[in-house]
């Protein structure tokens, strides 16, 4: 078979179409690089969003409330159906209700050495939405103190503004966690005092959080109004930058921390770039394939007489098809391999560049890129086979001459 193919190669020449072949191959290379790059970029972006290295815990939890306008002042509660609708969105993994305290409260220092007093309100949220794993994050009536999670920015505000203006010492998180203070809760039957302690600091929710057990108990015993609609919810999402989420919130007149969703703008830009690259790649690929099949047809047509004589002498159609397949396919496979290597090099360069900036990408092309390359190989395989079969049909029907 090898000897036969060597002779067939001398007989079925394609010298006249050499430039077309080079054109098709160049087009094919660019097209495949574009398509694989699009797939790889998408994979990189996914990687940035979901991989553990890059995961920004803040970005994945959003506190959502109604945008306050002149029209809805005092009626910013979220209805059950609104919450349910939010829960049903594909990009929302779970929704937690933020329960506000419906009683008056204040905190004050336990000792006079470090005096402070302020009125305060609390919120509570289901445990799974809290980014602090404090073992004391629970409460019952016999508890020694009420654990509290404070927003980081409260401490920043104290350390960098308040302490200067009041001539007070700056405090570290560790020091704050050691301070036990009084929590006064005012109910219809008077004031009840508890001990309170900050057990952690969070960036996720910008309010003082207490365990749900305390909140439910407090609201029952001291609450002024019952069955109030929740005004804020916290959602867990896989991608806070999802443009669909941003559009949904906007459409429903809901707002959240814009800083967390700003990524959606970049996401849209990335999506557009990836789409343009992908679509251009597919169009270029289609044209390159067309030129490639024309080249196959041209080769067969220009060797039509020789192919007929070969068949007359006894060369089988499958031998000829096999030869043509071997003639055309390896070139395209090499092109795919080279294009894949090129995408691999680009990925490695991206990896080294971005690692310096603290963004961690895989140094190797993603598995989806490998699959895309295999898919492209499959498409070329099929098109080549189909094209050879089609253009060989006529000489074969002649059974030689």
């Amino acid at each position, binding site marked *: 078979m090898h000897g036969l193919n060597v002779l067939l190669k001398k*007989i079925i020449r394609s010298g006249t179409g050499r430039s077309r072949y080079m054109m098709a191959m160049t087009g094919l290379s660019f097209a495949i690089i574009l398509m694989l790059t699009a797939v790889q970029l998408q994979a990189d972006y996914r990687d940035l969003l979901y991989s553990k290295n890059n995961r920004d815990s803040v970005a994945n939890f959003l506190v959502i409330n109604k945008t306050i306008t002149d029209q809805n002042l005092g009626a910013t509660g979220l209805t059950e159906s609104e919450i349910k609708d939010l829960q049903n969105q594909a990009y929302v993994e779970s929704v937690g209700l933020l329960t506000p305290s419906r009683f008056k409260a204040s905190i004050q220092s336990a000792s006079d050495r470090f005096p402070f007093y302020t009125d305060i309100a609390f919120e509570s949220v289901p445990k799974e939405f809290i980014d602090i794993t404090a073992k004391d994050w629970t409460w019952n009536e016999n508890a020694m103190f009420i654990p509290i999670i404070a927003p980081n920015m409260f401490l920043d505000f104290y350390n960098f503004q308040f302490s200067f203006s009041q001539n007070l010492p700056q405090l570290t998180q560790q020091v704050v966690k050691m301070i036990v203070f009084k929590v006064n809760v005012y109910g219809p039957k008077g004031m009840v005092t508890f001990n309170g302690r900050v057990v952690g600091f969070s960036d996720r929710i910008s309010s003082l959080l207490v365990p749900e057990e305390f909140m439910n108990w407090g609201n029952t015993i001291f609450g002024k109004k019952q069955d109030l609609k929740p005004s804020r919810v916290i959602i867990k999402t896989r991608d806070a930058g999802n443009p669909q989420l941003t559009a949904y919130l906007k459409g429903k007149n809901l707002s959240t921390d814009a800083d967390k969703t700003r990524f959606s703008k970049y996401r849209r830009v990335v999506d557009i770039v990836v789409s343009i690259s992908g679509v251009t790649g597919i169009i270029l690929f289609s044209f390159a394939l067309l030129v490639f099949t024309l080249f196959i047809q041209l080769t067969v047509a220009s060797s039509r007489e020789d192919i007929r004589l070969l068949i007359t*002498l006894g060369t*089988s159609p499958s031998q000829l098809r096999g030869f043509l397949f071997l003639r055309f396919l390896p070139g395209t496979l090499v092109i795919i391999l080279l294009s894949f290597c090129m995408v691999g090099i680009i990925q490695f360069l991206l990896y080294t560049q971005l690692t310096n900036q603290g963004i961690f990408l895989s140094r190797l092309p993603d598995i989806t890129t490998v699959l895309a390359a295999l898919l492209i190989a499959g498409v070329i395989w099929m098109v080549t086979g189909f094209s050879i079969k089609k253009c060989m049909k006529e000489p074969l029907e002649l*059974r030689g001459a």
Partner: protein
Amino acid sequence: MKILLDHIIPTPLKDRFSQNGSAIWNTSVQFTQGEYIKIKAPSGTGKTTLVHILYQIRHDYEGKIVLDDRPATAITGDALALLRQKQVSIIFQDLRLFPQLTARENIELKRVMQQPFYESSVIHEMAAELGIEKILDQEAGLCSYGEQQRIAIIRSLMQPFEWLIMDEPFSHLDIENTKKAAALIARECRKRDAGFIITDLDEDSHFTYSRQLHL
């Protein structure tokens, strides 16, 4: 392989072939493997047409051809190629070499088209026997008709076959070279227990024919 010709009439000859005396056209005739068949006829009576019909590159005829028990028309594609690679070999009157290939490559092509019947050294031996060993590496298109005819003869002998079909195979050869070629063909047919069908214009004694038929 038995070849049965059952009332074959080529369409182009339909109106002008002689109804009287043809041992092939419009009659039933069977060739048994191992027979040496000579078909003699003057020019224009359809010798080449018959060869092409037998080799199945012409289909414009009435009647039917049966190879063993298979109708020839049912053999197509890879099966037809297999028949041409292993059971039926041919020497065309118009030789049909690839002019861009050397003489050796033309012969080699038929050797490697299927599981080789002979080692490649046999090419040189046969070429030496027919006196063309010196032009083996010359492009076939540059060889004389006599040389090309001997290349075509050797090419036909490179494969296994049960029948060798020859269409005026010595038309460009002198008496001496014809004798050598005929001896080689006879020897190769014996080696394979094969028969042949040869067409020619005149009487000859190149072979010991089993049958001589007039077209």
